[in-house]
């Protein structure tokens, strides 16, 4: 089986609300794909349709080329954590994993293995899940997803409710799962949560894909190859750089923002002409900035107040 999730033309409507509107994207193996958008953008609905929990009105969602409902032993092929609270409060964590293992004929030793991976082993695993904190439930949900050692993994807002240590832990876990060649889809409503863990991003708003690009690509596009130059000799520097074809703008009494020419070349040009400068910094956009850039033109994504203000 090829470890992929392929979503094409997916559409889902709940009454008058269109939750997912003609959504298409692919989650490739070996990388972490971030699934980003504000609350209500259709992320969870999409994941539910991938898992065969909700029936799409149109379109298909395939796991390794097959619809979820046709998978023989689904926990061996897809691991998912949708809602960490979805455990019976009276059942012990270990028993929760054990029934899941039995239902898919998984070896019972996997239960203790995954409890170890998520740090819930020992006496904690013998306690009823009802007494767990949100962070512990997240860990139990992640353990359940890993139970069948599946090549495809999906996590819906896994960072929610975790403490800083837990957040660092889950980032490392996501990276290592992808490094093992698995396809990993992680949703979040905060772009910054995915910084440093996602390789690829699918950005959605109002049930549609706004962007589907690599993180590096996205960042460099948002950064716009801008370079910040600090110099007391603004006039000379501008002349030299403009001659070389750069677009130069003054951004302060001793600062210039240069684009169109890479930083190394700027250093060479200024040194060559003997123009003194005190610093050269490449401007690096954050994912949050990239996100703003992306959504700037996506009118249907803005808040209704902005729309009203613009008469959109």
């Amino acid at each position, binding site marked *: 089986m090829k470890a992929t999730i392929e979503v094409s033309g997916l559409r889902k409507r709940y009454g008058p609300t269109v939750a997912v509107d003609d959504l298409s994207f692919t989650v490739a193996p070996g990388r972490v794909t971030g699934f980003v958008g504000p609350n209500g953008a259709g992320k969870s609905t999409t994941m*539910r349709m991938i*898992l*065969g*929990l*909700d*029936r799409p009105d149109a379109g298909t969602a395939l796991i390794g080329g097959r619809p*979820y*409902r*046709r*998978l023989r032993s*689904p*926990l061996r092929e*897809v691991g*998912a954590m*949708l*809602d960490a*609270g*979805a*455990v*019976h*409060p*009276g*059942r*012990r964590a270990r*028993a*929760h994993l*054990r*029934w*899941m293992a*039995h*239902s*898919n*004929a998984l070896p019972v030793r996997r239960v203790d293995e995954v409890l170890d991976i998520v740090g819930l082993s020992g006496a904690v695993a013998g306690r009823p899940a009802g007494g767990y904190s949100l962070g512990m439930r997240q860990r139990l949900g992640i353990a*359940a997803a890993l139970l069948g050692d599946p090549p495809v993994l999906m996590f819906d807002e896994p960072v929610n409710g975790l403490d800083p240590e837990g957040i660092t832990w889950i980032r490392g876990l996501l990276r290592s799962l992808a490094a093992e060649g698995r396809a990993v889809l992680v949703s979040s409503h905060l772009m910054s949560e995915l910084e440093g863990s996602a390789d690829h991003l699918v950005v959605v708003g109002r049930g549609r894909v706004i962007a589907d690009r690599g993180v590096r690509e996205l960042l460099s596009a948002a950064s716009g190859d801008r370079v910040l130059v600090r110099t007391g000799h603004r006039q000379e520097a501008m002349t030299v750089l403009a001659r070389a074809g750069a677009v130069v703008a003054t951004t302060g009494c001793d600062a210039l923002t240069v684009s169109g020419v890479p930083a190394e070349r700027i250093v060479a040009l200024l040194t060559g002409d003997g123009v003194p400068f005190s610093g050269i910094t490449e401007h690096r956009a954050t994912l949050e900035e990239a996100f703003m850039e992306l959504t700037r033109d996506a009118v249907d994504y803005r808040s209704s107040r902005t729309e009203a203000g613009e008469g959109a």
Partner: protein
Amino acid sequence: MRHVLHGEWTKLRTLPSTGWLLLALAVSTVLVGAATTGAVDTSHCPAPAGCLEDTTRLSLTGVRLGQAAAVVFAVLAIGGEYGTGMIQITLAAVPHRPRVLLAKAAVVAAGVLAAGTLGVLGSLAAGRALLPGNGFTAANGYPPPSLADGPTLRAAAGTVLYLVLVALLALGVGAVLRDTAASVTVVLTLLYVFPVITRFVTDPDWHERLDRIAPMTAGLAIQTTIRGAGPPIGPWTGLGVLAAYAAAALLAGGCVLAARDAN
């Protein structure tokens, strides 16, 4: 299917409520049976032999209360999953939804079968101990209820089956309504209120018709061991009526489960 069953069995076994409800089923059946049996004696009849009391049926009265535990137990098996949201994990683990309901039906039936058997055997034992003291002696024409006696064996086994069918009816209703409180209310109303309404129907023909289609009244016809007592329907036909209710509820539950989104 074997694995799905194994999963559902583990799920049922690992809930604290399972043990308590099955215990409640057995104990309440025995206690109510014993209390009722102990409260009836031959002194209210002109002659002991003329009482025409169905002592087996009398001893098994407790299932009328015990069935409530079976209803709650069966409804929780599915309603509890909707209540906690765990249904999505169940259906992700086993996407073949009719299989999930069948497996639940099998493990719920097994649990009720075990507890029901204990309750019925306990009730008969209590009856044997209490009846002679109240004048229901062999000399007066009331041999102690014994499983070696055909009609008593039928009544005993049939009562266990009755409990199993009530549980399956409750499971089906739970799958349709997806809510524990609503499902328990609907099933208990169907069982207990139906006979009460029938009581207010004065027309004898209609009274009889209603008795034949009321799930509890018809189903418990299986307990009748002497001619002329009990509801106007044959023992197995009566249990068949209840089985039809259970089958219809499970079928409806299966359709709803298969057709609707899992939440």
